[in-house]
C-alpha cells in the first residue's frame, strides 16, 4: 500500500501501523520525539518477528531440511533488498551485523589492522558519535597510527578547507558521520569521499541517522564502506548493516572467528569463507534480519522523498516556534539539516526539561547524546534533543513546544 501524506487523514492511517503510539504515558497521550535514538516499529515488522518464530525458525545456510531452506531464503532475500535499498552493486557486498556500532568496529578492526602502520593517520570529524570515535582510538593505539579530527564551525558544519588541509599521503582512512545525531547536520559526504580518494584513503560513512531519512546510493557516493542500523529505520534492534566494496571486503581479514565464516578448519590451517559469510561468524539474528526486510518495505511504501518532506516540515515548525521562546539556544544550525533539533535554554538544565516533559508524556532525549567531544566543542554539558519521524504530527510539535514553553517559565 502506498501512503501519501498530503493530508492529516493519511497520517492517521499511517499511525495505525504503530500501535505503540496509541497509549498514555503518565496520564497523557504519548508524544514520542526520541526517534534519533530509536524509531518505533510498524505492525509489519512486529508481525514478521512473530511469523518467523511461528513458521520458519531454523538455522540458516547449512541445513538441508525445508525449514532451514525457508529461513535461509528469507534471510538472503533481505540481503538482496538491502543491496537494492542502498544501490550496492551486488548483495555479497552487504554484511549483517549487530548494529551500526558493530559495523564500524568491524571496519576499524579489519581494515585498520590491515592498512595502518605507525605514523599513518585516520581522520574523523568533531561531530562523531562515540561509536565512530572509540573503535578508531582502539585501533590507532594498537597500530601506533594517529587519530586526527576534522573541525567544524559554530553552525555545526564541517570546515571543508581545513579538512582538505588535513589530508596527506599519511591519511589512510577517513570515517565520518553522514547525518549528525546531535546536530542534525547533513554532511557533504560525497565531496569528502572524493577528496579523500585523491590521497588514496579509504572512506567509511556512518549512516545510522541517514538511512531513515534520505535515499542512500553507495555507488553514487563511491564510499568504500557504509554502516547503518535497522532499529533507527523502523526495523528491530540487534540488526545492522555494513556495505563494503567487494575488492576491499575480499582483501581485509575476518573480524570474528566461528561457524559460518570458514571454508575448512583443521588444527594446522583454516581457510575462510567467501564474502559476505567471511564476516558473519556464528548464528545471526535471523528473525531480526527478516524483519528488517519489512522495515525496508515500509520505508519504500511511503518513499524517502515523502518522509524527508514531512520531517522537514515538522523540523521547520518546531524550530520556528522554539525560536520564539526567550533564551532559546539551538545547537546545530547547519544549512543542510535533518529532523533533529538540539537545544538549551538559558538558566535551565536540559535534564530538568527531560524529566518534566516525560511527566507530561513527551519523550525527548537529554544529555551528551554520545557525542562528548562535540559538547566540549560547543562548551555545554549537554542539550535537550527532539527528533522527528514519519509518524509525528504537527499537533504533537505544537503540544511539545507549548509544554516546553510553560516549563521554561516555571523553571526560571
Amino acid at each position, binding site marked *: 500500500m502506498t501512503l501519501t501524506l498530503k493530508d492529516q487523514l493519511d497520517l492517521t492511517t499511517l499511525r495505525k501501523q504503530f500501535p505503540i503510539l496509541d497509549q498514555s504515558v503518565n*496520564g497523557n497521550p504519548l508524544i514520542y520525539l526520541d526517534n534519533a535514538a530509536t524509531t518505533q516499529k510498524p505492525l509489519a515488522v512486529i508481525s514478521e518477528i512473530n511469523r518467523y518464530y511461528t513458521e520458519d525458525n531454523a538455522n540458516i545456510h547449512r541445513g538441508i531440511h525445508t525449514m532451514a531452506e525457508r529461513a535461509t531464503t528469507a534471510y538472503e532475500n533481505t540481503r538482496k533488498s538491502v543491496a537494492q535499498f542502498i544501490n550496492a552493486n551486488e548483495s555479497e557486498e552487504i554484511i549483517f551485523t549487530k548494529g551500526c556500532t558493530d559495523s564500524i568496529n568491524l571496519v576499524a578492526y579489519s581494515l585498520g589492522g590491515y592498512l595502518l602502520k605507525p605514523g599513518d593517520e585516520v581522520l574523523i570529524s568533531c561531530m562523531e558519535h562515540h561509536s565512530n570515535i572509540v573503535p578508531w582510538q582502539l585501533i590507532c593505539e594498537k597500530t601506533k597510527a594517529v587519530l586526527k579530527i576534522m573541525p567544524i564551525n559554530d553552525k555545526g558544519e564541517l570546515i571543508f578547507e581545513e579538512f582538505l588541509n588535513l589530508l596527506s599521503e599519511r591519511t589512510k582512512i577517513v570515517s565520518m558521520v553522514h547525518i549528525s545525531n546531535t546536530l542534525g547536520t547533513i554532511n557533504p559526504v560525497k565531496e569528502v569521499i572524493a577528496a579523500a580518494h585523491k590521497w588514496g584513503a579509504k572512506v567509511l560513512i556512518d549512516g545510522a541517522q541517514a538511512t531513515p531519512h534520505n535515499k542512500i546510493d553507495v555507488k553514487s557516493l563511491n564510499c568504500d564502506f557504509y554502516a547503518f542500523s535497522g532499529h533507527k529505520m523502523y526495523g528491530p534492534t540487534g540488526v545492522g548493516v555494513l556495505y563494503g566494496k567487494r575488492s576491499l571486503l575480499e582483501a581485509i581479514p575476518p573480524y570474528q572467528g566461528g561457524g559460518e565464516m570458514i571454508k575448512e578448519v583443521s588444527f594446522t590451517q583454516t581457510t575462510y569463507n567467501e564474502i559476505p559469510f567471511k564476516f558473519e561468524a556464528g548464528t545471526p539474528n535471523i528473525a531480526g534480519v527478516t524483519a528488517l526486510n519489512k522495515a525496508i518495505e515500509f520505508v519504500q511504501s511511503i518513499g524517502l522523498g515523502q518522509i524527508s518532506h514531512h520531517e522537514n516540515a515538522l523540523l521547520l515548525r518546531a524550530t520556528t516556534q522554539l525560536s520564539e521562546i526567550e533564551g532559546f539556544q539551538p545547537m546545530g544550525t547547519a544549512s543542510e539539516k535533518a529532523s533533529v533539533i538540539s537545544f538549551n535554554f538559558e538558566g535551565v*538544565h*536540559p535534564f530538568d526539561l527531560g*524529566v518534566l516533559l516525560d*511527566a*507530561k508524556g513527551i519523550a525527548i532525549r537529554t544529555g551528551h547524546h554520545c557525542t562528548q567531544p562535540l559538547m566540549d566543542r560547543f562548551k555545554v*554539558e549537554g542539550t535537550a534533543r527532539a527528533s522527528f519521524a514519519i509518524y509525528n504530527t504537527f499537533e504533537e510539535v505544537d503540544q511539545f513546544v507549548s509544554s516546553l514553553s510553560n516549563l521554561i517559565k516555571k523553571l526560571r
Partner: protein
Amino acid sequence: MNIKVRQEEIIEEFGLLDGDLEMSINYLIELGDQLAPFPKNNKNDDFIVKGCQSKVWLFAQEEDQQVIFHADSNTVVTKGLVSLLVRVLSGHRAEEILNGDIYFPDKIGMGRFIGSQRSNGFSAMIKQMKLYALAINIKDKK
C-alpha cells in the same frame, strides 16, 4: 527526630500526592528550593558526586557531635532528590547514619519517577553521605 521518623514523614507527604508523577516532581523541586545555601567555596570538584547527567555537590561537617550535610545540584530535580537525603540524614550522630536503613525511596515509588539511571546517582549520594559519616566516626574514636 530519628532517621526512621524522618523517612516516615516523607512517605506520608508523598502519599498525599496519590502517585501523581507531575505533582511529585513539582513537590520535589519545591523541597530542593528550601535547601540551605551551599557554601560557594566548597562548590568545586573536591565535593562533587557525578551522576549520569547532573552534578551534586555534597559535604559534611560535625557540630555538637552531629553530622550536618550541605548539598546542591545543577539541576532542580536532582537538588530535590538530594534534599530528601539531607533531610533524613543530617543532624544525627555519625554512627546512627552509618547504621541507618534508607528505605523511603522504594516506599514513595521513587524508581517510577526518577528512572534507573538516576537511581544509580541516588545510590552514589547515599554512599557518599555514609562515607562522610564513616570518616567522622573514625575521627571521633581516635
